[in-house]
């Protein structure tokens, strides 16, 4: 469906989408055709870090759109754009009970395309405040209490924040009965109000907090590095890249009957984003749900899982898995540690295709990232024994019905075999009774042309066309792929089917 043909004249059926990443600025020109877009041309140029419009207009030029900052061109096609904004807006979340409001606050921040840099339950103490002052997140999402519920913690936490040097925006999304008081206490801060993320016990209300976070993103990010001039020039606001992708995931779920249970893994140098679209809990699965019912469309971001900038933390997380894997090739862990040391000094390093060791190291890093990201995204079941026999208690999201997984981002876009070879599974003894609710039988696709973020920009305005084009643009890598989740590493050796490793999750 996606074709590329030469065309010089830009028409009114054209749509331009640009994604300004931290390293690359990508652009694509699409033509609308009933229920889908046709890709006319795409381009990639280095991001002009000091002044973003330079790279932006260069990318446009390469898709035959010759415009500059000035001009009064009448047939300029609509331009949509996103910005990764230094790896995403940093949000600290403050909630009350870890499994309730704090957990929901994290979900809200993630689904808004933010990165959660710190999370605090209950009362903020001096050390917590110190951490907030040091990190200076862009936003602090302050939650706690149902409407008419607990007031004490949000009140006391507001007082602690009022006395702090925190300079970012505070979004209050807690018990609405104390809004007036909070407004008084935090009068000196940049404070905004949203609806309670848990108005009644166990009830999720993510959308208002999500859109507030996006609002702050626009205010704070757009003003820097020339993005504001782009807003004036094209009359449209940018979206955070992960939010654009999230919008696309929702659009696909809404318009594609054949894509009702899927996941997207976007793995970069610093973070691994995991998106899922699937019902969280299946009453026919024979399990009893504990805790909150998670949303159908869910995103989590792991700031410590990535191929380059975060390689060090991946190493410390999955050291013993790496050691076992490398032993099969008669390699020692210190070789891999040296490689990771090299990556620290040169995060843009790409392994030489002829260097088998480096290729292997990258493959292991990728596996550790994917497995840990999936482990944190997925829920688990635990068998508990009752008077009426064993019962399976589910916590978190059930991913077992997921039948399609999409890989995106530099490494996954370029490689075929990430989910294809066997990896030993190590599970710490404490969680050995908990079984992760992973996908077990799925087809694996790759977003090889990096179109999903670009289509994500169009997804809010043209969901049907974006969804169809996104699905058509994928390359199928593996059909009906099966995963076994094994508890005993000894069982894995010599097993030809692939296994998602569980890493040494501490």
């Amino acid at each position, binding site marked *: 469906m996606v074709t590329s043909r030469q065309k010089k004249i830009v028409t009114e059926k054209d749509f331009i989408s640009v994604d300004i990443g931290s390293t690359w600025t990508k652009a694509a020109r699409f033509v609308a055709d009933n229920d889908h877009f046709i890709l006319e041309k795409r381009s990639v140029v280095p991001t002009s870090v000091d002044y973003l419009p330079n790279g932006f207009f260069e990318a446009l030029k390469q898709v035959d759109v010759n415009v500059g900052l000035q001009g009064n061109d009448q047939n300029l096609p609509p331009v949509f754009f996103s910005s990764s904004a230094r790896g995403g807006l940093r949000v600290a979340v403050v909630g009350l009970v870890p499994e*309730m409001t704090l957990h929901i606050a994290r979900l809200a921040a993630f689904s808004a395309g933010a990165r959660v840099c710190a999370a605090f339950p209950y009362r903020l103490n001096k050390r917590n405040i110190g951490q907030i002052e040091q990190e200076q997140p862009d936003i602090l999402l302050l939650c706690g209490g149902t409407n008419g519920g607990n007031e004490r913690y949000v009140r006391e936490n507001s007082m602690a924040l009022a006395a702090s040097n925190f300079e970012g925006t505070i979004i209050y999304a807690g018990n609405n009965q104390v809004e007036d008081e909070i407004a008084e206490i935090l009068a000196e801060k940049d404070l905004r109000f949203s609806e309670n993320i848990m108005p009644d016990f166990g009830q999720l209300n993510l959308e208002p907090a999500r859109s507030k976070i996006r609002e702050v993103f626009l205010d704070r990010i757009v003003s820097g590095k020339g993005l504001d001039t782009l807003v004036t020039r094209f009359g449209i606001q940018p979206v955070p890249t992960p939010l654009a992708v999230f919008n696309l995931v929702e659009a696909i779920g809404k318009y594609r009957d054949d894509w009702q249970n899927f996941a997207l893994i976007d793995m970069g140098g610093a973070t691994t984003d995991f998106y899922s679209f699937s019902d969280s809990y299946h009453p026919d699965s024979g399990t009893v749900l504990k805790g909150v019912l998670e949303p159908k469309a869910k995103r989590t971001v792991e700031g410590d899982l990535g191929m380059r900038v975060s390689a060090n933390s991946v190493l410390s997380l999955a050291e013993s898995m790496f050691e076992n894997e490398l032993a099969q090739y008669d390699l020692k862990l210190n070789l891999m540690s040296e490689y990771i040391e090299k990556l620290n000094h040169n995060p843009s390093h790409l392994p030489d295709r002829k260097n088998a060791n480096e290729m292997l190291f990258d493959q292991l890093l990728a596996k550790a990232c994917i497995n840990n990201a999936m482990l944190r995204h997925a829920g688990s079941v635990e068998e508990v024994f009752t008077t009426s026999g064993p019962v399976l208690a589910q916590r978190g999201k059930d991913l077992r019905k997921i039948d399609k997984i999409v890989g995106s981002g530099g490494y996954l876009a370029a490689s075929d075999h990430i989910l294809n070879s066997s990896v030993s599974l190590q599970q710490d003894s404490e969680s050995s009774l908990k079984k992760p609710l992973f996908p077990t039988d799925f087809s694996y696709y790759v977003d090889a042309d990096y179109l999903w973020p670009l289509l994500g920009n169009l997804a809010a305005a043209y969901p049907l066309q974006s969804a169809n084009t996104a699905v058509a643009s994928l390359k199928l890598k593996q059909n009906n792929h099966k995963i076994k989740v094994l508890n005993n590493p000894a069982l894995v050796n010599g097993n030809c089917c692939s296994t998602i490793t569980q890493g040494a999750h501490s």
Partner: protein
Amino acid sequence: MINVVLGVIGFDCHSVGNKILEAFFVESGFKVTNLGVMVSQEEFIDAAIETDARVILVSSLYGHGEIDCAGLREKCIEKGLENILLYVGGNLVVGKTPPDEVERKFLKMGYDRVFGPDCELEKVVELLNGDLEAKKDCD
């Protein structure tokens, strides 16, 4: 409005009485957070914290109440719910233990009121209103 948390503790699945209790307490003017059946101590406490409940109403029908209910008071104190009222009712122990002995046992565990399976709900609400009034000064 006074917030109350209601649920059937442990691995007990008896849901009929739970629905009756919910309807009754709602009708009596309380804001009820009903956690349903198979509720752990932690879930009772988490719900009570978020909703700022004044009382936790624990039911147990299947005879394992003693082991399920032990330690809830201590956990509440640990989690900062020093002043919360704990009510418990149902078939709390298996066998023919006399009701006053059962009551003594659960009072010792830190429950404020203990009820058998056939108590009058009007009486429970009356006692609750009195206890809440008496607790007012503690808050």
